[in-house]
């Protein structure tokens, strides 16, 4: 049993967990036809059947119930402000299954030429009173009852009075911003805290204009909008929810990683051997002192950035995203690709950190400019 927990603790580390999830992600949610066929071959789509749903339920619930037997797990999961996140986790898994279950169904129907389920339903019109208003009322009462029970059984947290001189360890932002705080591990605050939120907002607003696929409007489908759903789920599940879960449940004192069954030991020491790209290039590879001139010092970093944001879009437009480029045109494509590259920069930076201990690609602390 202890060994199993140890293994889970080990696996839960972002390096492994994230890598593993990323590895299987595009097979489960294939963005391209090729991956889609592999997905079918592997039978991964069976997850979105009733049996798959039960499997998901048993696995997640089973893990959770098993976890509750562990003191450390219980402690973190039942912390008052973390309870909604546990609920969110289950809800998301369930709803993900629900919509993909319907999507699979619809995809089948469409393949058979029947049109989606919703289209059939929509042929018939019903009256708002009582059909809609009444179920709305029922939903309200159920949710009210739920929140009341929640309120009765779980007191709202209230810690000691505010003390600006003693900071709790760890100091965490509200849970819905923990994704951003988790990004702080890999990025400077101006990127994680300002640039990314802005990009997320702009990016979300831009979705209707980038996704110009006319299909899949008003019904659940996967096959008709593989790329869109895959990218969206990648952002929403892996880069947002996963980071929030990590930040909430797996980050302890000094923002050190702690497995779900691990005791939050304030003295835990993690190896911190991060270096900047410039240091890597000059000191480690070339055995030289860092140049005094900032631009010479950081030229490799700037070059990398230039390639990433300048050259890569062009290459992609000619290769992987040729179809996308053709359908979007140059302007929309550049918006799309910049947004996408920014999003992908996060996992890239994560891997650079884990693999090469890279702290910053461009590090100019003189101007608070670290990338």
């Amino acid at each position, binding site marked *: 049993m*202890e060994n199993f927990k*140890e293994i889970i603790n080990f696996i839960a580390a972002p390096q492994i967990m994230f890598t593993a999830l990323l590895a299987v992600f595009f097979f489960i949610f294939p963005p391209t036809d090729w991956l889609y066929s592999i997905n079918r071959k592997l039978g991964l789509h069976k997850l979105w059947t009733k049996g798959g749903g039960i499997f998901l339920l048993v696995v997640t619930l089973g893990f959770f119930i098993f976890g509750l037997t562990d003191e450390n797990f219980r402690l973190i999961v039942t912390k008052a402000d973390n309870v909604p996140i546990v609920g969110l986790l289950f809800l998301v898994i369930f709803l993900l299954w629900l919509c993909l279950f319907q999507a699979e169904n619809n995809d089948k129907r469409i393949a058979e030429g029947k049109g989606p389920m919703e289209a059939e339903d929509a042929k018939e019109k019903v009256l708002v009173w009582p059909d809609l208003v009444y179920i709305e009322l029922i939903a309200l009462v159920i949710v009210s009852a739920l929140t009341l029970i929640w309120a009765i059984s779980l007191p709202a947290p209230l810690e000691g009075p505010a003390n600006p001189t003693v900071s709790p360890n760890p100091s965490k932002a509200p849970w819905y911003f923990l994704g951003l705080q988790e990004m702080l591990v890999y990025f400077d605050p101006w990127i994680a805290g300002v640039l990314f939120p802005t990009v997320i907002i702009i990016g979300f607003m831009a979705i209707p204009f980038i996704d110009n696929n006319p299909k899949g409007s008003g019904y659940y489908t996967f096959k008709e909008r593989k790329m869109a759903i895959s990218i969206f789920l990648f952002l929403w599940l892996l880069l947002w929810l996963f980071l929030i879960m990590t930040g909430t449940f797996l980050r302890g004192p000094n923002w050190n990683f702690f497995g779900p069954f691990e*005791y939050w*030991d304030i*003295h*835990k*020491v*993690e*190896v*911190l*051997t991060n*270096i900047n790209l410039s*240091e890597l290039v000059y*000191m*480690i590879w070339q*055995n*030289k*002192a860092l140049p005094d001139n900032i631009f010479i010092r950081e030229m490799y970093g700037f070059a990398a950035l230039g390639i990433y944001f300048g050259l890569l879009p062009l290459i992609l437009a000619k290769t992987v995203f040729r179809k996308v480029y053709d359908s979007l045109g140059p302007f929309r494509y550049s918006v799309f690709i910049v947004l996408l590259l920014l999003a992908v920069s996060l996992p890239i930076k994560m891997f650079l950190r884990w693999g090469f201990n890279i702290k910053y690609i461009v590090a100019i602390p003189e101007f608070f400019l670290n990338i």
Partner: protein
Amino acid sequence: MSKKPESHYNLDKLHMIFAIAALIMLAAFGGLFMKDYDRSWKDYQRDFNGYEMEKTRVKHDSEYNALKNNKEYTTLLSEIEKAEKELSSNCSDMADLENEIVQLNTEYDLINQKAKFTNAEVDAAKYQFETAVGHHQGDAAATKTTFYNLKNKGDALKNDLETAKIKLDDKVAAKKNCTAKLDDLNRKKRNLSTKETLLLRKLKTIDPEQMSFITRIGNIIRDLPVIDMSNPTVKIKQVVLKDITDDRILTQVPKVDRCMTCHLGIDDPGYATFQQPFKTHPNLELYLSNDSEHPVEEFGCTVCHSGRGRGTSFNTTSHAPSSEKQKEEWEEKYDWKVDHHWEEPMLPIQNAQAGCFKCHSEQTPIKGAEKLNLGLQIIEKAGCYGCHDIKKYKDWPKAGPDLTKIASKTSKEWSYKWIQDPHKFRKNTWMPAFFNQSNNNDAASVKRSRQEIHAMVEYLFKNSEAFKLKNIPFKREPKNGEKLVSSLGCLACHQIDPKDTPTTRDSLRQQHGPNLLGLGSKTSKVWLFHWLKDPKRYHPETRMPSLRLTDQEAADIAEFLGNDSKKDFDKTLVPPVDKTVINEMTFDFLHKMEPAPTAKAKLAKMSLNEKLVYSGKKLISQYGCYACHDITGFDGAKPIGTALTEEGEKSLHKFDFGFVHIDHSKHAWFDQKLKDPRSFDKDKVKTAHDKLVMPNFELSEEEREAVVTALLGFVSERTVKNKKKARTPENLMVEKGQTLVRQLNCKGCHIMEDEGGSIQQSIIDWLVKYKEYERGEAQTIVTSFAPPNLIGEGKKVRPQWLFDFLHHPTPIRPWLNTRMPTYTYTASQLNGLLKYFTALDDEEFPFTDKVDTHMSKAEFEAGEKLFSNDYFGCAKCHIVGDKMPGGSPDSWAPNFALSKERLKPEWIIEWMMNPADLLPGTKMPTYFDPDNFDVSGPDDLLNGDEHEQIRVLRDYLMSLSENPETSPQNESTPPTE
């Protein structure tokens, strides 16, 4: 005509109207920003910045020139130049050295990075290992090996690092060695030019001439509207005080003062000659500066000065003009108006000391607040607290004499004339005038007043108790009496012929008792004789002490004082009793209690005398005579005046200004009330009973100003209660003692707490008149003939001795003619005084003797030698027992025979070490020079050890009691209450 889309309005016109409306709106917007931007304090700050710039320029120039002319500096400069030249020749390998250092630095950094990383791994491995062992988790053995492997690696790297460091340090040291001289010189240069550098730095931030062109533009932009949120040159300055509050009636909030937003030079001594608002505060030692007792960051401004500290314009801060002239000036310049919505306007500058009383109300006098002290002393002297409740003066004795035995002291005629116009008999008496005032000097009132006085006199004499007067010695010498009066110390409390000099606290001490002019008109010599012999017999509560006079002395003085009478006063006639007026008056009083017919019937039954006595009692009650005098039949009567304890913060609308045209301010009202207490009755219709009764003390303008200052200071302490001196037992002792000292007028004779000794002037007069000294000479030796200075008395004398002495004074300085009087203290008073002296000097109370003064024979002999004329010759000045020293009495010093009982042994040591330190200006010579203490004493005694010498001499002195055999052991325990 082109076809336009149909609309009700002409669209072109709408565009025009819209454009005009938008432009108006835009202009209004401009106005909004302008209005917000235009603040008077900004102009002041700009002006001030200009001054500051000029001042700094001047300072910098002078500092710069001084530096240039400073030889040290110029030589330093040339030395630096030389050193720089030498550097290139001496350290020819400098460039190589630097290259090498860069090289070594890189090497070091590389190893350092490796070491750091390895260390990080070591730390992590250590944690793993520790938890593995501690929590029995995982493989302890494996983690142990990793840890130690890593640790070895880390240690090896550490070695490398240290080696690299040594190499690097060597080179750096070599380089440093090369430049050592230059570095040292540069450091010297930097130290010398610190001031200049700072001034230059400051100039660079404020002086456009010192700025780069672009900075100058930035400097203009930073103050532009809207942008000025970021980093303006002009900004509001404020202090927020934690412990001092602003009174918000229901609650107290931290005080915020922004005065320094305009009063910019207030804490800068360089602005003393400037006009307001930049003028420096006149007393930076006590206020504002960091080292003062009232730093601005802790006390702010308005806690003392009042006013609205949050305001930042002239009017919203509640400035108060100090004079009519200033008021007019302000009205013209600032459009000044009274702020009716702020109850605490600024104190006019002449009353500023009122602010001190808020915190320092317990221990008075307050050092430095002379006007306030004077005001308080006048209040004490005039006995305001008799009619007006003042918390500070609760339980103070009545200000005037006892009238219960008046018939034995004076006559009805004199009493009548005295009440009618006391100032006519004695121009500066403290008995105030009740009659012939602005509300009762019309013919009808005068007619009634005459009979009122008759009634009151009649009541007093009717109720006067018997006082037996025995015979007075037949032979009386007025000349001797005069001499005694001027030498015994009477003049510490009494004046004979007061001169018209401004009232000071000193002069008030000399008016502690009445002035002694015209006593012949007032009373008899027999009465005076008995009074002088034993004042308490006539008036048990009197503050007049006994001077232990012999019968002959008392008789001589009585003769001298009784010979003086005021002829013109005696000649004035007492108007006859007017029955009709008496009837009316008595009826009025009766009618107040009863319906007219009953009153009439009662009146008809009364005899004239009964009527007089009846109305007399009512009148004494109406005028409140009993507040200052003991009068039979008025025991426990309540004071008749308004309570004054928090008068200074009473809201202005509670003051009745009547029809008097004065400023609507508290200070103006107080002044008017003191100047003419009845003036607020002006033009009002009132019956005789309803009129204002506050009497007129005929205070001078200065006196009034002082009293007004005190009154303005009578405020609640709730805004400062966290800042007040703690009421520790010691502080309470001092407080109580200070009250006693003022009630007993100790400072009339003695100097205590750096003031007092008012008697000295009269002693000079005595020396001149009777001892034939030149006035100048008399002034220099007067301290020898004056009562002793009591500074450090608590440290000096034993409480037990002081207790005995105060109880039964025995002469310590037989050459003095002034006598320490015998007061009849209560036990609590005596204890209060003892504790006061000890608390004032931070001494322990009760005192315990911790010093053993027994001497060996050798020590005794050494002491004797030191005492003898061969060495210090102590007996040349000091009295020993009944052995008087030679020479004139002005050089004599206290009796050694009393030392043992009287003095604290620790004090004697301190005293001999440095007398002038304990009692500045003392005659006692300094035998042990404090500057060269170790070589100051004689070398041939006690191995030349000065400390030993002093101790032995002290012990020797302590053995010089009058009767060594019978003197008690030093186990005096001070009295307990």
